[in-house]
């Protein structure tokens, strides 16, 4: 008996969620969107995703060995790899994917002490790193073709809009008009279901929302971040989104902007990465709002068509400061201050 009984500090039992169950659950919730990506972009999308995962997990294993830890089973490297895969265009060169994963795990994560140490989102940092290095490869998009062998390239809806805005004629009322004028026939339903070019895992808003809702219900993703991110972004688009089309206030196409690009993937699965987001509710609200503002700024004014990755890693920089500023309120502190008066 003596040696079999476990001696440990209280509490003696535990909430069912663990790091690994959380990571694997998130991966599972992402799976449908990934399956969809493979379905419409073909096996190349699968290859890209698997390469990203393999490179991330292999890097994690290697660095874990140096530090004498085995951290594969916690699933965080798998998830990072999966998300990197999801953030890649289907036709991206394979070496780009590998570099993104290695950078994410080795530089962004392990340099700062491995899981939990990183203050920036590894997957997004990896993506941005390769984006700035191989912009061409990272902006060549595959048209959805139900996996036919010969891929055809074409711009993403947001990309078409960026280009179209440069030479827009006067009678265009909003993004959907502009797309029609550019000869890119896209409907809201296409955006919602994911029948548009884009990164492998970002196109299907429907499946991402379904997975994200599950995470929200399970309290794995924080509602504060999701709500303030999507809310502030939608508000800004609604208020000022019309200006670029010569319209007044309150006329932005919120639906189009919510459904296009990597916003859903970013807001539900990446801004909510607990490691690189703030600790307290208030902090999370501020952070989410910052992400929303930055996404708006970059989408409407930036030189790159999409702003979600950059918006999130930009806000990551502020997280340590936010954490200092928004500490929990200590119990029993108010009274002592009154006393002092």
């Amino acid at each position, binding site marked *: 008996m003596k040696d079999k*009984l476990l001696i*440990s500090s209280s*509490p003696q039992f535990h*909430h069912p969620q663990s790091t690994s169950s959380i990571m694997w659950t998130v991966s599972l919730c992402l799976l449908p969107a990934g399956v969809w990506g493979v379905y419409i972009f073909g096996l190349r999308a699968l290859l890209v995703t698997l390469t990203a995962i393999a490179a991330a997990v292999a890097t994690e294993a290697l660095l874990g060995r140096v530090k004498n830890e085995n951290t594969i089973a916690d699933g965080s490297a798998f998830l990072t790899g999966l998300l990197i895969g999801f953030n890649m265009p289907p036709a991206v060169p394979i070496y780009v994917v590998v570099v993104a994963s290695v950078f994410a795990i080795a530089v962004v994560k392990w340099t700062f002490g491995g899981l939990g140490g990183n203050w920036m989102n590894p997957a997004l940092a990896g993506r941005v790193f390769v984006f700035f290095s191989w912009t061409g490869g990272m902006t060549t998009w595959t048209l959805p073709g139900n996996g036919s062998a010969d891929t055809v390239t074409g711009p993403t809806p947001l990309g078409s809009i960026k280009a179209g805005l440069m030479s827009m004629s006067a009678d265009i009322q909003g993004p959907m008009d502009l797309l029609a004028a550019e000869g890119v026939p896209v409907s809201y339903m296409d955006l919602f279901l994911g029948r548009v070019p884009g990164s492998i895992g970002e196109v299907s808003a429907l499946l991402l929302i379904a997975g994200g809702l599950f995470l929200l219900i399970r309290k794995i993703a924080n509602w504060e971040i999701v709500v303030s991110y999507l809310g502030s972004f939608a508000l800004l688009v609604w208020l000022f989104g019309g200006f670029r089309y010569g319209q007044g206030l309150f006329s932005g196409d919120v639906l189009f902007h919510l459904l296009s690009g990597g916003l859903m993937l970013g807001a539900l699965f990446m801004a909510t990465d607990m490691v690189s987001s703030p600790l307290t509710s208030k902090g999370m609200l501020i952070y989410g709002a910052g992400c929303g503002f930055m996404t708006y700024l970059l989408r409407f004014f930036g030189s790159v068509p999409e702003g979600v990755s950059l918006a999130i890693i930009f806000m990551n920089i502020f997280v340590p400061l936010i954490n200092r500023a928004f500490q929990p309120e200590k119990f029993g502190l108010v009274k002592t201050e009154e006393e002092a008066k």
Partner: protein
Amino acid sequence: MSRFKTFPKGGIHPTDHKEATCHKEIQNASLSSIAVVPLSQHIGAPCECLVKKGDTVEEEQIIGKAGGFVSANIHSPVPGEVKEIKQIFLPNGIAVDAVVIEMQGEFKRLGKEETSSDWSGMSNEEISAKISEMGIVGQGGATFPTHVKLSLPKGKTCDTFIINAVECEPYLTSDHRVMLEKGKEVLEGIRIIQRLLSPGKTVIGIEANKMDAVEYLQSLVSSEGLDIDVMPLEVKYPQGAEKNLIKAVTGKEVPSGKLPLEVGVINANVGTCLSVYEAVVLNKPVIERVVTVSGGAIKNPLNLKARVGTSFRTLIEDCGGFSEEPVKVIAGGPMMGFTVYDLDTPVTKGTSGILALTAKEIKAAKPTNCLSCGRCISACPMGLNPTKIFKYIEFNLSDEAAAAGLMDCVECGSCSFMCPAHIPLVQGFRGGKKVLRKNSMKKAGK
């Protein structure tokens, strides 16, 4: 949200597992032939040992005399002969001397009619002296000597007297059963304490998962016309922690580092009230208490009335033994209790439960690095930042940890319970407090 009151910040909702024992009447536990009676069963100075090897002791004889103002007498739970005085470890890890008594001779009360005396004629001093003599300590877990708590310092008054009937720890049902089965006695005990404190008002705080007890006590209170408010509270751990209970009941916050009396509150556990009744009315010292024996590895979980000094093994055998190999045996509840490695560990005045948990129940996992998820922060009822404090301790930054509120931590375990990384935060805090105490002693020494 809920129609019941609660404290606003933090708190968690672990599965309560109380259904295993909450309907089971209190039974008498077996007596083990050897009683091991630790000489310190309370917070404060250990007792002075009054017996030596070979002495014969009677049941209820004082064998340990209170070793100071903050201390409580210890009585022999059984008649018999002192075999030896040896050092043992209590579940909280403290090494104490214990008197080992081999049971022989006659019991005083067993099988006899209880004789009760009327306390209405006693003076407050006499009551206080009785409580002190009978060695009553708080049975809510802190085991603070009750006579000390009930003697108001000069110039302080008690506005509210709160009876802590929350029993927020999962599994445990001893207070619940005491209220159902000894409701009248408990109320009488409360009235005795009311006499001592003359509080503005008296509130019994009970979690809403014990509505039968609420209704029963309410009916007793109204039939006897007592000035006691029975208040159901939302089910949330740690509702029973005194500062949180006070916040829930009165809305007042006890300042950091201060006692409840600072806001005019005194609180006592249900079991403590029962002991007060027994001491004053039945003239009976604390030699037994109600212990919940439960957990997935126990064949037939029960609420047992056990004598102090009885081994855990005896109680477990009373419950039919183990149904499967337990992974942990715990003294107390799963949130605040201590694991033991030796089933010969004796029951003490503070033992509210004995739990034998299986691997499936404890849900252990290998700790990983902190994910900064902030769950510990939202769980902490004291409004602390557990992850930050833990990291300070981990990196030997004790001063920073103290500044971040380490000493305000009540070790409720909410943070560790929620932590997905399974970081033993509370263990870190206890180690950190140890270091702080060491440092301050060193400073004082200089």
